[in-house]
């Protein structure tokens, strides 16, 4: 089921980014923030109890005004503080229903966006380490280790086998831009893993992992590894992407969150939504 959901959200994000073509990563991210804001506002419009939200929010404001008005009366201020807490709780409860719909979509969406904005493809001429983590019962020196890379890459080192961490690793170098499938094995059946090279904005999948729920949520880029492969994960150490907004380097998730909130504040009026 998770693979199916990941495929849908992956296709959506790929489609949006494909439409934006050669726009800068910052612009693409802001566009996603806008879409996310529209989603939030639309869900609020559809499923939230706007009257309750309005009432609880007004109550919060009223309690805050109480604190300001009766600032010279400590007992009143304390009582108002208590009422602010109660009002805030009521406000959060009234927001639970829309959040119930928004959060799963946002988590899947952000999981997909991470593949675009947390990391970047390996630039032409740049090297990266590919690591295959084996299940505990399989020794890295038990069988012949092999790695076949697509034409966009060359393998720069022989297999490095770690007895300490039960891993096999290679260093690969990008020789031209493109996306391909590499095949690796520790003597057991071959496992495939996507690998991407290039200098432009493109989706990457840093890890291919097993079928655990959170693994599938956090690493949605590829299908889960089969249990019988003997491999628990294959990862590519893609370089981190740095995003600049007006000359300042800002983490993409912070930028997305802040921009989504700002966009939501702007678009809530046309939707006639309060939150």
């Amino acid at each position, binding site marked *: 089921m998770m693979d199916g959901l990941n495929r849908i959200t992956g296709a959506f994000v790929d489609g949006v980014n494909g439409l934006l073509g050669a726009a800068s990563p910052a612009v693409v991210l802001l566009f996603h923030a806008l879409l996310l804001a529209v989603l939030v506002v639309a869900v609020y419009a559809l499923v939230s109890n706007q009257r309750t939200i309005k009432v609880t929010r007004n109550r919060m404001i009223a309690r805050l005004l109480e604190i300001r008005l009766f600032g010279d009366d400590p007992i009143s201020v304390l009582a108002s503080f208590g009422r602010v807490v109660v009002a805030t709780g009521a406000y959060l409860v009234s927001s639970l229903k829309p959040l119930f719909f928004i959060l799963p979509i946002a988590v899947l969406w952000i999981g997909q966006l991470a593949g675009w904005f947390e990391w970047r493809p390996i630039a032409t001429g740049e*090297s990266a*380490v590919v*690591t295959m983590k084996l299940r505990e019962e399989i020794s890295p*020196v038990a069988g012949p280790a092999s790695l076949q890379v697509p034409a966009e890459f060359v393998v*720069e*080192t*022989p*297999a*490095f*086998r*770690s*007895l*300490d961490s039960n891993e096999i*690793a*290679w*260093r690969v170098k990008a020789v031209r831009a493109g996306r391909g499938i590499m095949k690796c094995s520790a003597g057991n059946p071959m496992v495939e893993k996507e690998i991407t090279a290039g200098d432009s904005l493109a989706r990457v999948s840093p890890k291919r992992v097993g079928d655990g729920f959170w693994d599938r949520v956090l690493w949605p880029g590829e299908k889960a590894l089969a249990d019988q492969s003997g491999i628990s994960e294959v990862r590519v*150490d893609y370089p981190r992407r740095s995003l600049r907004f007006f*000359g300042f380097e800002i983490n993409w998730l912070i930028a997305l969150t802040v921009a989504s909130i700002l966009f939501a504040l702007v678009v809530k009026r046309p939707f006639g939504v309060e939150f």
Partner: protein
Amino acid sequence: MTNDNLSKLSRRKFCGLVGGALAFPGIVRGMARGIPKLAVIGADGMDPTLLHLYASQGLLPNCKKLIDAGGFKKLRTTLPPQSPVAWATFVSGLDPGGHGIYDFITRDAGTMTPELSTAKTTDPKHFVNFGKYSVPLASSKLQLMRNGPTLWNVLAESGVPSFALKAPVNYPPTPTKAKTISGLTTPDIHGSYGIFSFYSTDPAQTTHDVPGGQIEKIRLARGLAYCTLRGPTNTFDRARGSADISFTLERDPQNAVARIRIQGTDVLLNEKEWSDWVPVSFSLMPHLADVSGAVRFFLKQVRPQLELYVSPVNIDPADPAFPISTPANYSRQLVDEVGRFYTQGMAEETPALSSGVLSDGEFRQQALHVIDQDLRLFRSQLNHFREGFFFTYFSSLDMNSHMFWRTIDRQHPLYTPALEKEHGDHLPTLYRRIDAFVGDVVDHLGPEGQIYIVSDHAFTSFRRQFNLNSWLLDKGYAGMKNRLDRDGAPDFVNTDWKRTRAYGLGINSLYLNLQNREPNGVVKRGDDAERLRTELIAELTAIRDPKTGEQVIRRVVRPDQVYRHTSGDRVPDLVICYNDNYRASWDTILGGYPREHLLDNLDPWSGDHCMDPHFLSGVLLTNAPVRHAEPALEDLAPTILSAFGTRVPEEMKGRDLRIEPANSVAAK
């Protein structure tokens, strides 16, 4: 503009020009004034003899073109002809008395502790203590000790767009509108000129410090070793320990490959391979204060012993812990363009070669990486250069001539024909790299642009070393607390200051132990000091090498007789001008007293230039003839400023060499 031209000026073009003037006033102002294009390639240690030799062999076609057209002159260097001293003169247009850099090393006159002469860090005075932490209430003060004007600052202030890439003796960089990144004298993260780390499983190896580095013996368990990368002194730690990083080094059970795992980054290396830059972060106070740096790993050997070399921790240009560029984010922009690069001023791993940790071949590999990174950086910025002043500095010829002079001097104690055969092509290779860049710059400038190739000094052989402090001790000018411990610690630890009248510090400097200047001064200022100086000059110039019969010290100079200003307690009382092939020993530089006065130099550091400047003139190679017969380094700043029509600051006493663009050799 002629009427014909005016008639061709369409309304659209006119609007474009006016629009451009409003949008980019600086560019239009430059166009209106016709700012010249002048590039200076600073080639530290380019030797005029080698330049002519390699040019005549057809190895340097671009330089040969300039030489053949009359653009070559020997360039008088400074006293002493040390790189920081000489480049400080180039940058400021002042002699050492003016810019205040007299030697690589100086001392804190209060404590007599040797220290680097070009920059000084003053720690904050007030701290708040929390448990094991001591939080300073102010930041440390980092100060450039070079005085006087800075060439590119004066130009930038006059509206001349300026670049100064790997600017020497400019750490921390002086505030300016010019785009600069610091070069020579920029320290590593420890504040030194570079401390390498070497890890080895060799049972014969012990954990110990060597000059410019540290060696750590490591043990393997299931192919894995735990290592520690020494960090800077933790200024937040009450005990002032170092902020270290732990990392693992693991080798494959069979293949000649190993993995370094450091702070979440995996580095996989084949044997004899260098890694790319790896950013590291030293935590001073968890989540609150850290210092970032960048290192390169070299997997020297996988079997039988596992050996890993780690470069000195460079200031990371992507996240500089200390100021290295103007504007401050320029170094990060450079990283975006060309990737990380060496920021350490003397990036070649010379201490590792001297201590035998790296072989000649391994050193060469690293040295080529340094010049190639420099070239990539310089070429990327050359593409942005349209007009104004463009300066680049190469350390490669200097550092490699120091280490590989033994391949070309057949009289050097370390010379062998096999060495010449194997590595004799190294210096020509480097000269060729720079020559290719000269060609790129000439092409980029076009016929109207000017290019100066400047070297601060020539090179000669360093065959014999002289222990100045040992000589002073044995002649009764210095005293030791324990005369039996002559091989003990340097830094004047064993010096009996009450019985010391003179001491050598740095490569060419000799100081008197003056009353009211040194904390335990014994020599009275005035006549006593003058008499002592006269006596020392006579005795020092009389020293003969028993092995060769040659005079060891050619001249001893009183700085006050050659420098225009000599104030402050950093000015040496005498400057020692060694004879050809002779130089101060490494032991004497920091205040050691070995037993011998003169001995063969058996360090790969086999070439040098800290001798008499009379036979160490550098290079001035231009694409326009230089009329003056004897140009000097201090003439260049006024000459360059005059070329841009910029007012020459009064303190600059050098001449305008009037290297006229109208006489451009390239144009001819």
